[in-house]
Every structure is written in structure tokens, then in C-alpha cells.
């Protein structure tokens, strides 16, 4: 189905922009779309002191903030994915701090980037 492909492409583009944003903030991206039994961990970043697990939500033409679709249940799953990554990732760096972030990427109806919001330590 074309629309599914389009949605996939939109999500991938959102995650690419989110990763770019994290890199600009001084984070090295250690993992993308890491698969666990809870689901996919979108991004893992590291700035030398803090490991950041990041959930990326991408929406097109939405009036509401994409953050709304991160339910408490979803937040719990992301925490579970983070724990799995910590246990499974080979030669991961030692980090004194862990953080769970959410990034929303909004495109307007014509597909241009409308905005990117980054919530730090939000769950």
C-alpha cells in the first residue's frame, strides 16, 4: 500500500531529523531502531556523560502535538527497551546518567518541516 510506504518514509525522515538534532546538541548516536521484545527503540545518544534514550514521534499536518500519542503505557515500554539495550548492547560506554527524551517532528500538509520539539527527561 502506497500510503503505508509514505508513512514509513515520513517516520524515517522524522527520525533522521531527530538524530541530526541530537548530533547538533553534541550527542553521538549509538543506536537507531534497536529491536527489542517491547518494540523498537528509536534513538540512543551519548554526549560523554549522559545516555539518552529517545522516542521520536512524527506527524504531518496535525493540529495537536504528537506528544499526545505517547501514553503512559508507551512510556513504560520505552523504559523497558532502554533496560534491554543496556543489557544487550556490546561495548557500550559507561554513563553516570540515563535520560529518556521525546522528540516530536511536525511536517505541514505539503511535507515541509514545520517544527521540532525536544522534551528532555520527560518520562
Amino acid at each position, binding site marked *: 500500500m502506497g500510503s503505508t510506504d509514505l508513512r514509513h518514509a515520513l517516520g524515517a525522515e522524522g527520525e533522521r531529523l531527530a538524530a541530526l538534532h541530537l548530533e547538533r546538541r553534541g550527542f553521538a548516536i549509538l543506536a537507531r531502531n534497536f529491536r527489542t521484545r517491547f518494540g523498537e527503540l528509536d534513538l540512543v545518544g551519548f554526549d560523554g556523560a549522559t545516555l539518552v534514550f529517545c522516542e521520536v514521534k512524527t506527524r504531518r499536518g496535525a493540529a495537536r502535538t504528537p506528544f*499526545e500519542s505517547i501514553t503512559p503505557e508507551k512510556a513504560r515500554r520505552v523504559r523497558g527497551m532502554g533496560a534491554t539495550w543496556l543489557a544487550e548492547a556490546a561495548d557500550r560506554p559507561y554513563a553516570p546518567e540515563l535520560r529518556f527524551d521525546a522528540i516530536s517532528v511536525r511536517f505541514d500538509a505539503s511535507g515541509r518541516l514545520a517544527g521540532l520539539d525536544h522534551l528532555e527527561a520527560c518520562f
Partner: protein
Amino acid sequence: MLARVATFALDGLEARRVWCEVDIRPGLPAFGIVGLGDKAVREARERVRAAIQNQGYEFPMRRITANLAPAYLRKVGPSFDLPLALGVLAASGQVPGEALDAWAVFGELSLGGELRGSRGTLLVAEGVRAAGLRGLVLARERGGEAALVGGVEVAGAETLREAAEVLAGTTEPSPPPPRDHAVAEALGAPDLAEVRGQAGAIRALTVAAAGGHNLLLSGPPGTGKTMLARRLPSVLPPLTDAEALEVTRIHSLAGLRTGGGLVSRRPFRAPHHAISAAGLVGGGALPSPGEISLAHRGVLFLDELAEFPRPSLEALRQPLEDGFLTVVRAQRALRFPAAVTLVAATNPCPCGYAGSERCRCTEADHARYRRKLSGPLLDRLDLCVTVERPHPDALAAPPVTSSAAVRAEVAAARERGAARCGEDMPVQADARDLLADAYRGSRISARGHARVLRVAWTLADLAGRDRVEAAHVREALLYRDWISDPVAVAV
């Protein structure tokens, strides 16, 4: 940002101040309410969100935490909708926060943002006065009830936006609706002029009204027991202002008030005999008043007394004696007033025709029926009268009296009683002997002794005498004979 709104939670017959604190900070969009709220308070989230948006405000897509303090106090019902909504608006800068300092707010919201009245408005308005706040913002329909409390500004509003604008000072609050007239309520009240015959029962009704004595009407089906009982409120003196306030407070808490103004008529409550003990004396996780409290300062009518479950009737014994009762539920003890005149009606036997040839009951039936009526409860019924089938001539004759005439008699007797200021009435020697004989012959209990004397006082008051005479004691004793042998009296 943080905002704080004052509101009130009902705690029995008192309203306690509750601070509704709302904090908005960056984070995933969420709206959490803490502070020991019930299901209705949790559901307020959905109403508040929809009401804010439908009134043209913005619902902040951030992390919202609302706290209802003090946290130990249980918050029940939807009246926290308005404080929560205004807290969210103030914390997000859509309503000036300072505006909320001097006011308490109270009310339920519809999804569209219209304000709805809530139970206990009168109690909340009294709470506002006690807390020294300037006024109360609430649903306009309840403005009249809140306005009964002096010294409190009452601002009625139709919608969330109007409430916000009243607080911000950009809109003048609308005046409360005019008081509904007591006269309108009194119209259509049943009157004794509609009763034919039954002079004896009307006499007992008069004594009950004059002295606040409890009354038992016994008789075959269709003789007018219920009709007579329903007319007792019409011969009682009107409620004093203080009494009216007590009654209004209870009815407001129970959600029986819809209009504004004081309750002007004496309550008449006639619960069906399927009622539970909790329904009669009050109960619930957060205790609410029972029928006996709803009948406070009025008449509690129990039709078909023998059909009431035993526990329900036994529960009446203490409040009948004390005029109040304390309902205790898990760590909560609430006191409700319960000063009522109890009127009970019963058939003399299961078939209803004891003493006439139509009676099909056996001796054992009579005994079983008699046992259903609790002795200790009957001991508290001072006036027991048999309501006979009226004579055919009486049915055609004009009524014996009217409510207005009896009311005047009652008022005069009550005045004489009040003039004694709690002093005992002197008793003539022959009257004293008569009473002593009855007690020695075990016709009456010690409580009965005291109660017969009280009835005799009332009879003396009604007769305009200043001492109890033998005739008064004799009549008072007569009203108790039913207790020892209902069937014999019926014969």
C-alpha cells in the same frame, strides 16, 4: 506555573475549605489529579479538558498536575470541575491568578462548558463566610440558595467563560434569581377539612402536633390512616427561621433542593417499607443523611409499620429519643439532626379486620403480627389510636374541623408549653395517684411513666390549664393501651 483556587468539600453537614492547586510544567501532555478524589473527581479531567476547549480557551498540551489539599479529606462529586478548570486557566496565564485569591468557586461543568449546580450549595456558602473569603462563584441556578447566607458576595455564572470573566472583573456578576414564594409551596397542601368523621384520630393528631409526640394509627384498610398522617404537617406551626435553615442545610446536602430559598414547609417523608436501616438513619461510604434526617423538624411517616424490616425499626430507637444521630463509617463519624414527629400506621392484624366478623386471622396470626412490632419502638409511640370505619352519617356530614382551626389550637398550646421554659408542670394529687397505679400495675414502663406525664402536660396545655388533672392522665394512659393489647382495643 502554579495557580491556587479555593473551593469547598462537603464533610457531613459542614463544608471544609479545599485548595485546588494546579501546576503546569514542560513534559509529555498529561493531566493528573491527586488529593483523595472519588471517581467523579477523576472523571473531571475529561469534562475540564472539553469545557476549556469548547469555551474557546486553550488546553495546555503540557504536564498538568492538580492537587486537592488537604489530602486526607475525601473529595466527592463533580463540584471540583470549576475550580480545576479555573486553576488550569490561571496556571496557563489565560486568567489572571490574583483574581482568584478572594473568591471560592464551586460547580460542575458540562462538556460544552456550561455551569451546573451541585449539592450542598448552602453549606458551601456558609463555609465561604467562615473562611472570611469575599464571595462565591457558582452556577446561576443556585445563586438564590447561596444568597441565604449573609456577608458573602454571590456571583452566579452560566458558563466557564462567564465565571472567568467575573473573576477577572471584566463582567459584572448577574444578580441571583428572585426568591421563590413560600405561598406557592403552601398551595395544594392537604387539609383536615377533607376528612370526614374521625374526631378521635384528629384529637390524637392535635395532641401529637402540640407536644411533638409520636403517633401510631391502627385500623382496618381504607379507613384513612394515611390520609390523616399526610395532614399532620398542615397543623404544625410554620418553621422558624433557624429551623428552616437547619432543614434547608440537610436537604441541600441530600440534593433535594433545586430552586433557591429556604425550605418553608415542614418536611413530610414517607419511605416505602422496603427501606434498609442505612436508608432510614443515614449511611454510605461517605455518610449521607437518611430519611429520619430528611424529616428533621417535620414528620416521618412509616406506613405499614409491621412490614418494615426489624433492623430498620430498631435503628430508629436512639434518634427518636435524642433528636440526633451519629453515623459512623470507616474512620468517619458524622452527626445528623433527627428531631422528628414519628407517625406510624398499621393494620391491627394480617388481614386487617381484627375485632370484626370479617377477620380471618387465628390467635397465632395475631401473636405473630404483634411480635413484628418491636416493643421498645412501641414504647416510644406515645399516642396510639384506632382509626375506625367512619359512620355512614359522618361521611355525608361536614368535616369535623379544618387544618387552620387545629393549627390555632396547636399554636396556643405550644405557646403555653414554651412559656414554662422547661419547668415541670405541677400535677394534682389525684392525677399523680392515677399514674402511680398504672405504673404499679405494670401497665407502663419507667420510660412510659415519663412519657405519659409529657402527654398529660400537652393535654393540659391544650385545655388551657396550668396543672395536670386526673382527666389528662386518664386520656394520656388511654393512648397507651394499644401497646399492651392491640386486638382487645380494636374490639
